C-alpha cells in the first residue's frame, strides 16, 4: 500500500480541526488560513486522484483497508471508483469554496471553522468509505455540526433558525434511522452468521450470488429509499430543504445543497441499485413519478418565493427530481446523467449560495423586493449569479447541460410521460431563475447599495473556483463523463439483465 491518499484527504480536515482547537480564540487570521490550507491540501490530493484515476481499469482504486472490529466484519476500508470520485472532488472543491465564503465570519470564528472542517470530513468519509459502517459513522458525524452551526450562525427570516435547524436535523436523522434499519437488514440478510460483513463489495457479491430474495430486496430498498430519498429531498420529504437552507449559514447551505444532498443519490446508486437491483426495479416507477412531481412542483413553488435562499432551495429540490428521474430509468446513460447532474447541481447550487451569502453578509438582505439593481454595485457577484443561474437553466457550455440532456436521453424511452413533463421543467426553471436574476441584478440604480463593496481578494475565490469547474466541465464534459462512465459501465450487464425483469409496480408511463 502506497501513500494513504484517501486517508489524508479524509483526515486532513479533522486533524486541522484538532489543531485549531488548541489555537487561541483571537487568532482568527491563522485559524482561517489553516482551515483553507487543510482544504487546499485535500483538494489538491483529490485533483491528483482525479487525474491519476485509471479509467481504463475502473473499479475501486486508491484502496486502503485496516480491519477494525473483526467480529462484526467492520473494517476501515476506503476506496474510490468512478461514481464516488466525482463526488469526492465535489466535496473538496465545495469545502474549499465554503471556507473562503466564511472568510469574514466574526462570531466565534474558531468554533465555526472547527465544525465546518468536521462537517467536511464527515461528508468526505461517506463518499470514500467502502464499508457501510464507516459510511454510517461519517454520516452521523455530519448531522451534529450542521445543527449547531444553524443554531449559532444561522439567520432567521420566514421561520426562526431554531425551527429550520431542528427541521433539518430531524429530517436528516429520520432519514438516517430508516437507512440504519435498511443497512442492518442488509448486513443480516446478506450472509449467514459468522461470515457477515459491512463491506459494500461483499454485499454486492452476495446480491449477485442470489443471497437476497426479491421480497427482501424490495422491502429493504423501500427503507433505503425513504432514508436516502429524504436526504435527496424527494417529494413528500422535501420540505426541510428550503427552510433548512434559509436558516443555515452560507457555508452550511453550500455544503448541504452542494454535497450532503448528493449522499442520497450516491447511496441510492451505491446501495440501492448495486446491492438491491430487484428492489430498485420494483420501486423505479414510483421514483420516476415522485421525480416528476419534484421537478414541476418545486419549480412552481420556486416561482412564488420572495427569499433568494428559498428560490434556490426549491430549485435544488427541482433539480434533484432530474437526478431521481435518471436513477429511476435504470440504464447506463440515465444513471451517468444522474451522477453528472449531482456534480453539476452541487457546483451550481453552492455557487448560488456563496453569492447569496456574500450579498447577505454585506447588506443583510436577501428578499427579492429589497434587492434591486445589484449589477451596478456588485459586478462580480452579478457574474456569479449569472453563471449559476445560466447553469441552472441548462445553458450549453456550462456544467448542467450535458447531464440534463443525458438524463433526458436515458429517460424518455423508459418513462415517456414522466420524462416529457420533467423536460417541460426546463421552461419553468428558466422562468423562475430569470425572474429572480432580473429583479435582483438588473434594473435602475438603487443608491442604497452604493455603500457596499463588491467582492475582492479572498471573497472572489469561491466564484473563481466554482466558476472554473462550472465552465470547465461544461465545455469539456468528457473530463467528467470519462470518470463517471468508468464507474457506471461495470453496471451495464446488471442493468441489461434488469431491463428484462418485468416491471412490477405500475408500469411504464
Amino acid at each position, binding site marked *: 500500500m502506497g501513500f494513504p491518499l484517501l486517508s489524508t484527504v479524509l483526515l486532513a480536515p479533522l486533524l486541522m480541526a484538532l489543531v485549531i482547537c488548541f489555537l487561541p480564540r483571537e487568532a482568527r487570521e491563522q485559524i482561517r488560513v489553516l482551515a483553507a490550507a487543510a482544504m487546499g491540501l485535500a483538494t489538491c490530493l483529490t485533483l491528483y486522484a482525479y487525474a491519476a484515476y485509471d479509467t481504463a481499469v475502473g473499479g475501486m482504486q486508491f484502496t486502503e483497508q485496516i480491519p477494525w472490529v473483526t467480529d462484526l466484519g467492520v473494517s476501515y476500508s476506503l476506496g474510490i471508483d468512478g461514481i464516488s470520485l466525482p463526488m469526492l472532488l465535489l466535496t473538496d472543491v465545495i469545502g474549499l469554496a465554503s471556507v473562503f465564503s466564511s472568510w469574514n465570519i466574526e462570531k466565534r470564528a474558531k468554533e465555526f471553522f472547527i465544525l465546518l472542517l468536521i462537517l467536511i470530513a464527515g461528508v468526505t468519509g461517506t463518499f470514500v468509505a467502502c464499508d457501510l459502517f464507516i459510511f454510517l459513522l461519517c454520516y452521523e458525524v455530519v448531522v451534529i455540526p450542521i445543527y449547531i452551526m444553524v443554531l449559532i450562525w444561522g439567520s432567521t427570516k420566514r421561520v426562526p433558525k431554531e425551527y429550520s435547524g431542528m427541521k433539518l436535523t430531524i429530517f436528516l436523522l429520520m432519514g438516517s434511522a430508516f437507512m440504519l434499519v435498511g443497512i442492518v437488514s442488509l448486513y443480516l440478510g446478506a450472509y449467514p452468521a459468522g461470515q457477515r460483513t459491512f463491506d459494500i463489495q461483499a454485499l454486492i457479491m452476495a446480491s449477485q450470488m442470489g443471497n437476497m430474495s426479491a421480497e427482501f430486496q424490495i422491502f429493504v430498498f423501500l427503507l433505503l429509499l425513504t432514508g436516502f430519498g429524504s436526504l435527496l429531498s424527494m417529494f413528500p420529504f422535501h420540505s426541510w430543504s428550503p427552510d433548512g437552507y434559509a436558516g443555515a449559514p452560507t457555508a452550511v447551505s453550500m455544503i448541504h445543497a452542494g454535497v450532503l444532498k448528493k449522499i442520497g443519490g450516491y447511496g441510492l446508486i451505491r446501495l440501492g441499485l448495486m446491492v438491491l437491483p430487484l428492489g430498485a426495479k420494483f420501486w423505479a416507477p414510483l421514483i420516476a413519478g415522485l421525480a416528476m412531481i419534484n421537478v414541476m412542483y418545486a419549480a412552481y413553488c420556486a416561482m*412564488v418565493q420572495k427569499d433568494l435562499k428559498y428560490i434556490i432551495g426549491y430549485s435544488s429540490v427541482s433539480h434533484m427530481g432530474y437526478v431521481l428521474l435518471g436513477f429511476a430509468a435504470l440504464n447506463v446513460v440515465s444513471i451517468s446523467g444522474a451522477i453528472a447532474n449531482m456534480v453539476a447541481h452541487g457546483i451550481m447550487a453552492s455557487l448560488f449560495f456563496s453569492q447569496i451569502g456574500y450579498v447577505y453578509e454585506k447588506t443583510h438582505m436577501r428578499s427579492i423586493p429589497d434587492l434591486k439593481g445589484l449589477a451596478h454595485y456588485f459586478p462580480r457577484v452579478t457574474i456569479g449569479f449569472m453563471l449559476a443561474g445560466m447553469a441552472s437553466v441548462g445553458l450549453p457550455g456550462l456544467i448542467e447541460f450535458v447531464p440534463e440532456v*443525458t438524463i*433526458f436521453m436515458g429517460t424518455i424511452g423508459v418513462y415517456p410521460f414522466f420524462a416529457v413533463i420533467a423536460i417541460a421543467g426546463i421552461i419553468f426553471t428558466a422562468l423562475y431563475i430569470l*425572474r429572480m436574476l432580473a429583479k435582483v441584478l438588473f434594473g435602475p440604480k438603487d443608491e442604497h447599495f452604493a455603500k457596499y463593496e463588491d467582492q475582492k481578494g479572498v471573497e472572489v475565490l469561491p466564484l473563481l473556483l466554482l466558476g472554473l469547474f462550472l465552465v470547465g466541465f461544461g465545455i469539456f464534459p468528457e473530463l467528467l463523463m470519462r470518470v463517471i462512465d468508468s464507474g457506471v*459501465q461495470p453496471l451495464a450487464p446488471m442493468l441489461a439483465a434488469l431491463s428484462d425483469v418485468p416491471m412490477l409496480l405500475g408500469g411504464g408511463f
Partner: protein
Amino acid sequence: MSEFALTHAWLIPLLPALAFVVIGFFTRLDKSISAKIAISMISVSFLLALGVLAAVISGPITMDNPLIQKVLWAKMGTLELSMGVLVDPMTAMMLIVVTTVALLVQIYSVGYMEHDPGAGRFFAFLSLFASSMLGLVISVNFLQMYAFWELVGVCSYLLIGFYYYKISAREAAKKAFITTRIGDFGMLLGILLLQITFGTLDFMELKELVPAYIWISGTGFMTVVGLLLFIGPIGKSGQFPLHVWLPDAMEGPTPVSALIHAATMVVAGVYLVGRAYFIFSALPAVMTVIAWIGGFTAFFAATIAITQRPFKRILAYSTISQLGYMMLALGVGSLTASMFHLMTHAFFKALLFLCAGAVIEAMNEEADIFKMGGLRHRMPTTFKCMAVGVLAIAGVPPFAGFFSKDMILAAAAEVSMPLYLLAAATAFLTAFYMARLLFVAFFGEVREDCPAHETNSYMRMPLVVLAVLAVVSGAWGHFAGFGEWVYFGAVQEEHIDFMIAGSSVLLTLIAFALAYEIYVAKRFSAHLLAQRFGILYTLSYNKYYVDEFYTIVRNTFVDKLGAVLYWFDLHVVDGVVNGLAKGVGCLSCVFTALQNGQAQRYVAVFYCGVIVLVAYSVFCAVRILNLLGGAF
C-alpha cells in the same frame, strides 16, 4: 488558402469566442482595445469564411457531399455526443452572411457605442453571439445545433438586456429567453425522440436512416417528431404563436437588433429547418403546417406593421413577416428560395436596422416615426441607404429582395394558390408599410426642434457596404446560380416567372403610390382611414392582444398555480410535518407531565411500570406454571 480555410473551419466560431474570453477577462474596461480585438477576430473569421466559400465553389463539396469533421465531446455508455464541422454550400453561404453582418455590425458599434461605458462588455457579448451562431451554422448533429441554439438564445438575452438598468430592456430580455425556451422544449423533445429512435443525432447518418424508417413504418411517428422539432424554429424565428418576443427585442442596442434580426438568432430557426430538411420534406403533413404557419405569420405580422409607430418596431414586424416568407418557402418545398431570401434579407434587414440605429441616435432616442420628418435633408447618406433597403425589402427590381421574393412566390404558386395569394398580399402590405416608414420619417418638412445630423464614419461605412450588398446580392445570386448551389434533392432551375414577378412588382408600385398619396401628398388622411377601419386598426395597433393573452395565461397557469402549490407545500406537506412534530410535542407534554419533579409522580409512574411488568409476567407465567405442573 481556401484548402486551409476548409480544414480549419472550426476556427471560424472559435475566434470570436476567443475574443469573448480575452475581452471578458482582460480588456473589458478598455473600449478601443476591446473593439479592436473583437473586430480583428471576426475579420479573420470572415476571411476564413471567404476561404471556405472559395473552397466550396471550386471544390467537390456539394449539398450531397459535405465535408465533415468530428470530435468526441462526451461519452457515456453507448451514447456518444460529438461536436464537429459540417461544410456544405448552405453552411458556406451562412458563414459568409453571418460573418459579414457581424463584422459590419461590430464596426458600426464602434461608432454607436462611442459614449457607452459598457462598450467592452458589449463587444464581448457581440463576439460570443457571433461565435454561437457560427457554431450553430457548422453543426454536425442535432445536439451541437441545440447547444449552440441555446447559446444563441442566452447571448440574445444578454444583449437585449444590455441596458440592464432599463426595466423594459430587462423584461424584454427575459421574455425573449423564455419564449424561445418554450420552443426549445419542443425541439429538445424532438431531438430526444430522434435519438431514441435512431440512436444517433448526426445529420448525415439520419439522412440515410430517416427515409428508410419512413418507408418501413410510415410517417405517423415521424410527423410527431417533425412537429416537435418545428416548435423550436417557431420560437426562435418568431413564427406565429411565439413571435411576441421579437418586437420587444429591439430594447437592446440597435446593432444588436440588426444582428438578431438579420443574421443570427432568428434565422437560426429557418436554418434548422433547412438543415433538417431531409426529415421535414419527407413529411407532407409537417410541410403543410410549416407552409401555413409561415404564410400566416408573414401576413399577420405585416398587418401589425402597418399601424405601428416606433421605427424599430415596424422593422421588427417586418422581420417576422419576412421570416414567415422563409418558412413559407420551406413549407412549399423550396430550400433554395428560403436560403436565398435568408441571405438577401440578412443584408437588407441589417441595413435597415443600422439605418434605424443611426436615425434614432440622431433623434436622441426618439423612436416614433411621426415625430421625425424631413430627415433626408439632414442625413443624406443614411437616407440613401435606407431607401435602398426599403426598395430591396419591397421587392423592386433589380434590388435583392426582388429575386428572392419572386422565387418564393413562384414556389408557393406551384404548390397552393391560397398560399400564393397570402404571400402576394403580404408583399403588398410590406411595400406599403416600408414606404410609409420611409415617407413619414424622411420626407416632409424638417421639424424645427429636430436635432438630427449625419452620423460618424464608423456608422456610415457599414451602411454603404450593406447597401451595396442589398443591391447586388439578389442579382448575383440569381445570375451566378444560387439554385445550383444550395438545393435539396434536385438542383433548382433559375427562371423568372414574368407573370408572378410582374404582378408582384405591380402590387409593390401600387403600394408605394398609395403610401405616397397618404403620407406625402396627404391626399387621404391617415387619421380618417384609421377611424374608418376602427376595429381593425385597434386590433392591429394593439398587435391583436397576443401579449395580453399570454399575460393572462401566465398569471393564471404559472403564478396563480404556483401560489396554490406553495400554499399546498406550506400547509399540507409541511403541515403534515409540523403536525407530526406537534404530535410528538404533545406526547412529550404527556411524558414531561410524568416527570414534574415531584417524587410522588415518579412513584406513580414507577408503579404503573411495575403493574405492566407483573401483568406481563403473570401472563407468561400461566403457561410456565402449567408446564411445571405445580412444582411448589
